[in-house]
């Protein structure tokens, strides 16, 4: 069963615009909420992550917003650039075990037009 639902599947944004990707989850045992960025031919790279005791985290142009009661979190990319064109995955971690496994969403393919 799919524990993580990511939307949209694809997103086209003009340079300088705001990109917003959403992730909804069911498992209340998730305790760590990262976003990964993946370029073609490369492995996923950690972009930004948040813990459930915080509602928002900002790192440069990237912001995570977290809504624990709604079991949703989102990635906002401000001033989107062509170099941001990639596939983005939410991948919450199951905290029921010590190390935990990541549950990846299906991904969002972002295209930023110059």
């Amino acid at each position, binding site marked *: 069963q799919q524990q993580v639902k990511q939307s949209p599947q694809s997103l086209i944004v003009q340079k300088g615009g705001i990109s917003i990707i959403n992730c909804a989850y069911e498992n209340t045992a998730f305790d760590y909420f990262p976003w990964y960025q993946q370029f073609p031919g490369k492995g996923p790279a950690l972009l930004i992550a948040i813990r459930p005791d915080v509602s928002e985290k900002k790192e440069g142009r990237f912001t995570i917003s977290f809504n624990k009661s709604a079991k949703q979190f989102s990635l906002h990319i401000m001033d989107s650039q062509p170099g941001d064109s990639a596939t983005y995955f939410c991948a919450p971690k199951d*905290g029921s075990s*010590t190390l935990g496994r990541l549950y990846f969403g299906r991904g969002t393919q972002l295209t930023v037009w110059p």
Partner: protein
Amino acid sequence: DAGVTQSPTHLIKTRGQHVTLRCSPISGHKSVSWYQQVLGQGPQFIFQYYEKEERGRGNFPDRFSARQFPNYSSELNVNALLLGDSALYLCASSPGQVNQPQHFGDGTRLSIL
């Protein structure tokens, strides 16, 4: 500092064969996880190892096995390959403490003919 390294980068096999994929974690990282990424989908968890012990297993058949060595490197073995095993196999390492991020290698692209 070197990141997670995986070998080989590409591999072509035929149905029924077996394959061994290798992973070297970031220096100092004691935990290694394996994921399968089918084209157009997100990675799916296969195994997690810490200090040479299996700490987690995903919903994959027994044809998939793995191990971790004393130097923390790891191997993923797949027997009796099927066409559906064609995928990018990713290795991720982490220090092993709670809530430490996982860092991924660039994967091994396995194609089954």
